[in-house]
């Protein structure tokens, strides 16, 4: 067996996987998106742009998603960074593993069950009742955009903590010493050394959270009480309630296109940002 053949053999399982579970399904979605809905629902072959023409009726869903996904990502980043920093830089190795396990612990239960728990926590007998005992009367949380935001931050926080933790944990501590030897105060060291070096971790975390958030439907459905409508919710309704598979497919194709554009722009931005930092650190 030549080296070339061996390479092909090794790549084959992955290639088959991609063909059957990525390329083919996406092709089906693309073909469906030009079809028509059958009388009882489903798909009838056709070639029409009608489905794409009716996309504006779901504009609100796209708008909600495009506002809440970046906001949720940003909020998760702001909360995750100090946590990851504490874990990676300030915690003794003995505690580190234990605390990291605590971060993963929620993943041992399904997100569905954890979101149901939030229904109880945010419901009238939960957090609002506690707030009322402190004099903050009539706080409404469950089935509001706030509840969805809390659910999103809660659900996605570990995904943000880990990449940042890894980038901070691998940080060369000698650079920090060098910085302080050269007279930089702790904050200046953080701003000029630690923060720039953790950009890759932040970028990965944000990308991970953002992509998953764009397709999120469970948290808005459970904690938004049907009043906070994401693209994911619109898709679920189109496929299993109105059984309009062609329109659902057109929406899915559009979502993928929107994602490709945003993610490309994002990667460019991140690339430029780290390039600037590289040149700044050289100077």
């Amino acid at each position, binding site marked *: 067996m030549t080296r070339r053949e061996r390479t092909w053999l090794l790549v084959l399982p992955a290639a088959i996987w991609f063909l059957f579970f990525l390329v083919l399904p996406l092709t089906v979605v693309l073909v469906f998106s030009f079809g028509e809905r059958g009388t009882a629902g489903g798909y009838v072959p056709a070639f029409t742009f009608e489905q794409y023409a009716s996309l504006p009726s779901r504009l609100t869903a796209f708008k909600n998603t495009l506002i809440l996904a970046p906001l949720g990502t940003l909020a998760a980043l702001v909360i995750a960074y100090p946590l990851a920093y504490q874990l990676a830089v300030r915690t003794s190795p003995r505690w580190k593993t234990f605390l990291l396990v605590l971060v993963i612990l929620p993943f041992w239960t399904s997100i569905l069950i954890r979101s149901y728990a939030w229904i109880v926590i945010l419901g*009238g007998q939960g957090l609002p009742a506690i707030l009322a005992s402190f004099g903050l009367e009539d706080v409404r949380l469950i*089935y509001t955009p706030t509840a969805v935001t809390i659910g999103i931050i809660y659900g996605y926080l570990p995904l943000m903590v880990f990449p940042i933790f890894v980038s901070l944990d691998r940080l060369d501590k000698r650079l920090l010493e060098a910085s302080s030897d050269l007279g930089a105060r702790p904050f200046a060291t953080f701003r000029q050394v630690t923060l720039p070096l953790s950009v890759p971790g932040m970028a990965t975390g944000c990308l991970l959270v953002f992509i998953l958030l764009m397709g999120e439907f469970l948290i808005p459905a459970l904690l938004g009480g*049907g*009043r906070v409508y994401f693209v994911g919710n619109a898709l679920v309704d189109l496929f299993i309630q*109105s059984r309009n598979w062609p329109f659902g497919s057109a929406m899915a194709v559009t979502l993928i296109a929107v994602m490709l554009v945003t993610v490309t722009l994002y990667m460019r931005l991140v690339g430029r940002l780290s390039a600037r930092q590289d040149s700044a650190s050289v100077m």
Partner: protein
Amino acid sequence: MQDDNHISRRKFMEELRRYQKGSVSRRHFLGVTGLGTAMAVMATAVPALRPRPAFAQGDIGNRVVLATWPNYHDPENFETFTDETGAFVQVNVFGSNEEMLARLLAGGSGWDVFVPTNYTISTYVDEDLIEPLDLSLLPNYDRSAFDARFADAGIIDGTVYAVPKNWGTTGFAVNTSYLGGTPITTWREFWDRTMTDFSRRTMVHDYQLTTIGNALKYFGYSFNSVDPAELADAERLLLDAKPHLFAIVSDIQPAMRSGDAWLSMAWTGDGKQLNTDHPEIAYLLGREGGELWSDYYAIPKDTQRRAAAYALINHLIDPAVNAREVLAHGYPTADARTNALLPPEMLNDPILYPAQELLDALEFAAAVTLTDPNRAELLARFKSA
């Protein structure tokens, strides 16, 4: 399953080994571990765990899959079925008829028995998704025992495609402590109060049939209307009411119980269960009308376990079994033989059996509401607004 049958992990493993070695019976094993229906899932995953004794009805296979609605059966009835036939009942729970239809349309549902509502059956027949029932395999079915009103939708052009399960109404649950002395008796009042003193305290179903239907009743239109002008009126009302809604959900019980919501669209069983635990929550029907519905047992055309499907339906419509079902879920049945076995206070319950004049105003949903694309689109616009 009883919680008092708690068993330690170690004890469980010991019992499991004993069972595997054949020193205890399956029944003993299920009994001591309290596993009951949970065993169904495990057994399908680990077939070697399951001995295959002979059963009176012959071998109908080792399992049967039932697609049904939440809180709609007595789990003990499934266990007796398993004991009698050797087939485990695997239950899939669904939230809407639309979802059930979507699954069957997609193919490969894996279901053997499902529970469609009256207005969907003709569509299943048109789409060739359910099979005409062989009544010789359902000796417990006696057409004359059923109130025709709740049995007819299962019979299309003289062929029986589905046999009646339970029936009920769609009304509203209201927490009477917040009414301020002015009762709500109509759908018009339901929507008007939603936009005034019940603002941000009302819930409507995440379900086109009932939410649009009860908005149509505000104007005195038919619950089933697909007339574009009438639907446009309903849409305007829904959009006006939306900022005043607490939620658009079908699972209404948690928020009504916690006191977050005071008023909600509700089905008989939700109304009954809420009223039993919280007497201040009343279940009422709109005076203008609304929905009367009836559920059925049917068999999908692509079932892989036909004999087991018939055996399960026949078991569940046995009057004695059915009476236990009704006592567990609190939905009325149209079967006179079953009613004869039920306690009189249940048969006189005004939530289960509303006054005749209220009942007379109700309509069965029409088949067209399921397939009409405009109603589905309307609900989507309402939700995304």
